[in-house]
């Protein structure tokens, strides 16, 4: 591990012919290996320091502790009864955001990859990526003065006619600071991440599959159902999970828009019965908290870390599995083939090569969106091809 790469072939080369191993080489190798190792150290550090800070509050006796019995943490039997409703609120808000946002995001991805004119597609993709560049605090302020009043008539309507559904029950908020408003803003914020990954995946669909479907007389939508969706399913699922991860950790939009209460409530249109999320709860209470209360908040942050880590890992594993299952399928398909038909073997190779690149694209694009450089990297690629 300490000396990977071509240093070994160099040593095997006859004397006098190998490149001089200068000290700069060794230092540089050490530096870059050290940097790579530091990534592991940082991630371990994040977990470690959060645990160190959180343990006193998690272990504390919440009922008899004077410090925990006042302010934001008063009235809870222990850490878990405090954090339970918060976890519910986090998952609930993210779930609504995902239900609103994911179908739209996938629709946009389809529009850009298969419906928009080829020349416009790049620009349209860039516009959606711009959404990712807007700071979350700006979305929060925008939510306060635009989305809140915008949703009021809709909230009234939902409550009047669909009030018997628990989600829309209760007294309708007059200011609009509801969990629905927060979730709508969250949905806007997760649009670009889901869109750009799904778009990359849809573009990877083998051209032959699409043309085969069209040649059999399928309409465009049938072609998409038969060729594009089955091919991109795992990619879209992991894109959605990454969007979920983003929504789970979003702080400022929720903190600004929702007027919360720490309770388990599925009502989406009320003023004081909005389930609070972990991140927003930390942001709101952190400045006024005492030392032990802060440690309790850090404890809730630790749980948020664990949850979003789990969601992200799941997304990566699903994205990675697409590649592995393709390899397995290759063996199966080859076994079923008549042994001496080179054209079918080639065809299988073709299909699987496409699949493998799609799997790579999933992980690549997933990270790429975090720096919005999908656009540039694509340009670069095209440039290289030319």
């Amino acid at each position, binding site marked *: *591990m300490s000396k*990977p*790469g071509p240093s070994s072939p160099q040593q095997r080369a006859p004397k006098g012919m190998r*490149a001089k191993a*200068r000290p*700069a*080489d060794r230092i*540089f190798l050490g*530096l*870059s*290996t050290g*940097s*790579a190792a*530091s*990534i592991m150290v940082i*991630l371990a550090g*994040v977990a470690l320091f959060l645990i160190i*800070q959180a343990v006193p509050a998690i272990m504390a006796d919440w009922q008899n502790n004077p410090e925990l019995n006042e302010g934001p943490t008063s009235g809870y039997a222990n850490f878990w009864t405090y954090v339970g409703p918060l976890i519910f609120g986090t998952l609930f808000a993210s779930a609504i955001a995902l239900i609103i946002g994911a*179908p739209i*995001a996938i*629709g*946009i991805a389809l529009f850009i990859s298969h*419906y928009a004119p080829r020349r416009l597609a790049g620009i*349209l993709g860039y516009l*959606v990526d*711009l959404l990712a560049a*807007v*700071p979350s605090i*700006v979305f*929060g*302020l*925008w939510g306060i003065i*635009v989305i809140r009043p915008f949703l009021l008539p809709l909230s009234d309507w939902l409550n009047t006619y669909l009030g018997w559904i628990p989600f829309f029950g209760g007294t309708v908020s007059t200011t609009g600071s509801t969990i629905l408003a927060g979730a709508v803003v969250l949905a*806007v914020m997760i649009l670009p991440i889901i869109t750009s990954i799904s778009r990359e995946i849809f573009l990877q669909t083998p051209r032959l599959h699409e043309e085969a479907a069209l040649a059999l007389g399928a309409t*465009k*939508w049938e072609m998409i159902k038969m060729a594009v969706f089955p091919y991109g399913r795992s990619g879209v699922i992991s894109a959605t999970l990454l969007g979920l991860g983003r929504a789970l950790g979003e*702080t400022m939009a929720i*903190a*600004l828009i929702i007027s919360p209460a720490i309770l388990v409530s599925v009502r989406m249109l009320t003023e004081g019965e909005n389930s609070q999320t972990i*991140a927003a709860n*930390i942001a*709101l209470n952190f*400045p006024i908290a005492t030392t032990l209360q802060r440690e309790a908040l*850090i404890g809730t942050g630790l749980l*948020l870390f664990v949850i*979003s*880590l789990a*969601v*992200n890992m799941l997304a*990566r594993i699903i994205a990675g599995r697409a590649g592995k299952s393709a390899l397995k399928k290759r063996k199966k398909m080859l076994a079923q083939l008549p042994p001496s038909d080179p054209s079918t073997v080639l065809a299988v190779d073709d299909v699987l090569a496409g699949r493998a690149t799609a799997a790579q694209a999933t992980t690549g694009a997933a*990270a*790429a969106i*975090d*720096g919005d450089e999908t656009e*540039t*990297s694509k*340009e*670069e*690629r095209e440039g290289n091809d*030319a």
Partner: protein
Amino acid sequence: MSATISPTRQPTGPIANSLTSGQLPRFVEWYVLAGSLALSAVLLLLMGFNIAGWLVLAAVIYLIALGILSIVVENRRKATDRVVRGLVTVAFLLALAPLISTLFTVVANGIGAVNWNFITQTSGSTFNADTLEVTQQVGALQAIVGTLIITGIAALISIPIGILTAIYLVEYAKPGNWMARTVTFLVDVMTGIPSIVAGLFAFSLFTLIVGPKAFSGFSASVALSVLMIPIVVRSCEEMLRLVPGDLREASYALGVSKFSTITKIVLPTAIAGIVTGIMLAIARVIGETAPIFMAASFTDNFNANPFEGPMQTLPVMAYTGYKFPGQDIAASNDSAWGAALLLVILVVILNLIARVVAKVFAPKGSR
């Protein structure tokens, strides 16, 4: 034999052109769109007009009308196809609405607050002893300086680590090496760390090292670095992988050492993409609110020392201006919008730089 077939084959009227019959005319979608916009406008004029309602109603009428028309003239499958095409387009327009609305709102609300004084003054109140008047001064200088210092330090930490890690992954690690695989996985996972958790990490770290009340700009920089490193690694890695292997092999064939090959051949080839990625990474973290709020807290005082005391930044100023307004609530809100506008301008500038760099410094001959 012919007697049994001919009755069914007998044409009953003029023979239809099988290529055009059963199809809607070419520009039917535009006609239907114009019709539904008009119908929606008429309906809403009767009930009270608003733009959002008009567009939404028009879209619904459009989809239904086109679907029915297509079912009648064409067939179910084509009707589904047309409706889906409409739905997908609507989804795209729906995504543009928040983008335009957000930018418009920020500019409209912020433009009143942003002027030369806002940029060059610090906020605070001054007491005039002669007239016994307290004048409230609104300014964002402390926040601008804080933002630049904190983001600058974060960039100084993240860029070397990010680039070196990418170099390790692309140039040094053998494919399948356990460390390379672990690091790649961890970087992917790190991109998903909630920003507030990064803030809590920095706070915990500095509480343990310095003691309670350890708010400082440097602590916020550490928090931002946690968010920024994975972005830099991923974009640099992508760019380094685009460098053709031929270039490296040509260099090795001339007996050039690995270090020189990387610094003189690989990095210059990929530099445009790397700089672009870094600019976009900075643009991403400069707008982070939660981690800075946790780690650097907030203040109205001017503080240019990143190692001591709370530091104000633009996103935090926008947040506190709304959530914890001063006595003059309207003025606080105004300065919050001003800070938000300055932040958006900064992000736009960084994005523009990134695009210009990508265009200007692209490897020669490839365009």
